[in-house]
């Protein structure tokens, strides 16, 4: 960034905190990052006055405002940036990671088998069904909408697969495609009624929840339960382990290498184009953290049965989803519609198309999740997709940090949220506690997540306007 010649003498080179100084913060206890000037109206007025003087001077031809966001180099710069985000309500994944750590420590303290390789490996498989459904919910939440049909749709997809492949001898892959298409189709229908007819999404999907449940019972017919042979693809998707030590480690190595290469190439391209790029130190730090996590997980897996296939597929879905949301035109438009429908419409974006496609994705992901859940219990039954699956999936997305208010979220929240919910269930089971307590605790965690979301949103609003 070029230095503005008009900058006032009392402002040192990288006063990265300045932007926030005038904003009224609502976050308790987070004020007072290093060097943060006291918040308050007086501060903002004096700044406004100073800027008036600056704008009267013929413009210096630089888009850089001398006060702002030039991140200091080194650790203190990151700390300042971090504090700025926390104060601005951009909490991201921080609360859920803290919550996860607390949950794990508590259950480990109560019974150390909670953190055993076997339990963690099981946990990684158990979260996949809910997590996949939650991944679709993330897309819907980004629009600021809700999909209440995903439970029934997941059950319907499982029933379609089981009945066609087991009862009617349809080729397994074809049956799989049929089940996925069924899920996508239900979403398409929801999207159509929501986007084209204008029925509120929660009503459409609530109606769908009931209707698809009815259709599932119909598909299952009188038998009620269809058992899957344990050599069919859906069971294998869930149950497969790669037992060789090298499998888990090489997947970890590939993931880390891929991340490093992509980050490095991205940086090189940005440097070449003359736009600000990630500092080398940051790339190295992130790569190291990723390597520790990846090899740590691989080590734990190898202590038990090796690399499980299901969580690997889940991870791939998350990464692909993340790419779609953050790197493609389509994803940008999903965020835009979630942020401001009017802005999106005026920018020439087809809001109905975005809405219909997002509900289709949600239906598709519900089907994917339903198939993993069917693989887990090796059957499709009348209770498939029932119980608290719907609530857990939505809760996972919200607990993971995707805002209920639209426009903010990441596919990674499906993983983090599903981990939190799965950990509570697993820990409670180890303790031998009943469902009643499990539900109450999960409910409390969900409420906490929504409270954090609401407070963060308020804080963002407060610090968003001068």
């Amino acid at each position, binding site marked *: 960034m070029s230095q503005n010649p008009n900058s006032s003498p009392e402002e040192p080179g990288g006063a990265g905190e300045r*932007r926030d100084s005038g904003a009224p913060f609502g976050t308790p206890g987070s004020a007072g990052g290093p060097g943060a000037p006291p918040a308050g109206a007086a501060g903002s007025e004096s700044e*406004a*006055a100073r*800027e*008036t003087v600056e*704008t*009267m001077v013929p*413009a*210096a*031809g*630089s*888009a*850089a*405002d001398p*006060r*702002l*966001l030039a991140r200091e180099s080194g650790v203190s710069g990151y700390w300042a940036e971090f504090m700025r985000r926390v104060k*601005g309500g951009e909490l991201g994944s921080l609360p859920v990671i803290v919550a996860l750590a607390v949950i794990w420590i508590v259950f480990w303290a109560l019974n150390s088998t909670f953190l055993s390789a076997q339990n963690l490996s099981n946990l990684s498989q158990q979260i996949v069904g809910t997590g996949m459904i939650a991944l679709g919910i993330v897309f819907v939440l980004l629009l600021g909408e809700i999909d209440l049909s995903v439970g029934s749709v997941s059950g319907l997809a499982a029933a379609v697969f089981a009945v066609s492949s087991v009862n009617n001898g349809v080729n397994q892959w074809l049956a799989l495609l049929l089940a996925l298409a069924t899920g996508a189709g239900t979403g398409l229908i929801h999207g159509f009624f929501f986007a084209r007819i204008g029925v509120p999404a929660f009503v459409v999907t609530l109606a769908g929840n009931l209707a698809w449940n009815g259709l599932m019972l119909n598909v299952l017919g009188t038998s009620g339960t269809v058992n899957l042979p344990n050599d069919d693809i859906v069971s294998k998707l869930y149950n497969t382990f790669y037992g060789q030590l090298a499998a888990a480690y090489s997947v970890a190595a590939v993931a880390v290498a891929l991340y490093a290469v992509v980050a490095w190439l991205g940086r090189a*391209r*940005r440097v070449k*184009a*003359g*736009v*600000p790029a990630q500092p080398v130190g940051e790339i190295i730090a992130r790569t190291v953290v990723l390597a520790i996590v990846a090899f740590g997980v691989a080590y734990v897996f190898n202590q038990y049965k090796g690399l499980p296939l299901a969580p690997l597929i889940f991870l791939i879905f998350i990464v692909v989803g993340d790419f779609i949301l953050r*790197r*493609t*035109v*389509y994803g*940008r*438009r999903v*965020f*835009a519609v*979630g*942020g*401001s429908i*009017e*802005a*999106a419409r*005026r*920018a*020439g*974006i087809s809001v109905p198309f975005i809405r219909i496609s997002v509900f289709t994705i949600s239906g598709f992901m519900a089907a994917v999740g339903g198939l993993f859940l069917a693989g887990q219990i090796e059957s499709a039954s009348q209770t498939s997709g029932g119980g608290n699956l719907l609530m857990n999936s939505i809760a996972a997305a919200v607990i993971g940090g995707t805002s209920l208010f639209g*426009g*903010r979220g990441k596919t990674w929240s499906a993983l983090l949220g599903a981990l939190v919910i799965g950990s509570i269930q697993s820990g409670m089971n180890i303790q031998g506690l009943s469902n009643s307590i499990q539900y109450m605790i999960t409910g409390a965690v969900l409420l906490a997540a929504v409270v954090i979301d609401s407070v963060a949103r308020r804080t*963002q*609003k407060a*610090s*968003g*306007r*001068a």
Partner: protein
Amino acid sequence: MPDSTSAPVLELRGVSKRFGAVQALTGVDLAVHAGEVVALVGDNGAGKSTLVKTIAGVNSPDEGEIVWQGRPVTIRGPHDAQKIGIATVYQDLALADNLDVVGNLFLGSEISGAGILDEISMEGRSRELLDTLSIRIPSVRIPVASLSGGQRQTVAIARSLIGDPKVVMLDEPTAALGVEQTAQVLDLVERLRHRGLGVVLISHNMVDVMAVADTVAVLRLGRNNGFFDARRTNQEEIISAITGATDNAVTRRAARTSEHGSTEAGFDASFDADFGPDDRPPAGP
């Protein structure tokens, strides 16, 4: 305009628009030349926003024609208007708060290859654009929610320039802004004029209008009520045209006197000030 040295980029002839029982616009004329700032003023409910929306393709006129670079055009929707080169910044900015500045600037016209965003090109061009307009914002990578009102306004204006328009219409861009931020926006309007764009500026603030406008077009009760050369008029004259405290003769005189020597500013003196008796109660909030 036959008596103008250059043809206007955008010209309205006898545009009328009716909403049910409300005749919002009656036979309105307007001409905008390249490099000219036309201020559109008038009391609340005078029809300014309606006129802008008509040009922007949000409403279609019931009568009259829109002439673009000498040729009559039919504007069927906002997309048509954008395509021929008319950009509009509405009173409510309609920015996506959750997207960063780059995301907002290129929303709907993202630079991409095979559906994948080219963030580097967009960021580079955003910086260039903001630099040429001398717009100061902390970073092109922060969400617009954390910008001040004035900064958001400048982003909205910059955004309208992405498609290389020839005419930019700004509906009350300084309405909610403080002194300093108003100055920023007015600076920006002047820079647009320097770049040879025609600007239509709606404002209730006479000081702002006198500061940047070349021509002041007054609307009253949905009709033209005088065109003034900003260099040869004063606030009182405009205010009396806005409030209707002038009779026909005075308005015609104002139009006549400013006709001499001001044609190079592209100002239209052939305006026929034949507004009828004020039998219609002022409508609108």
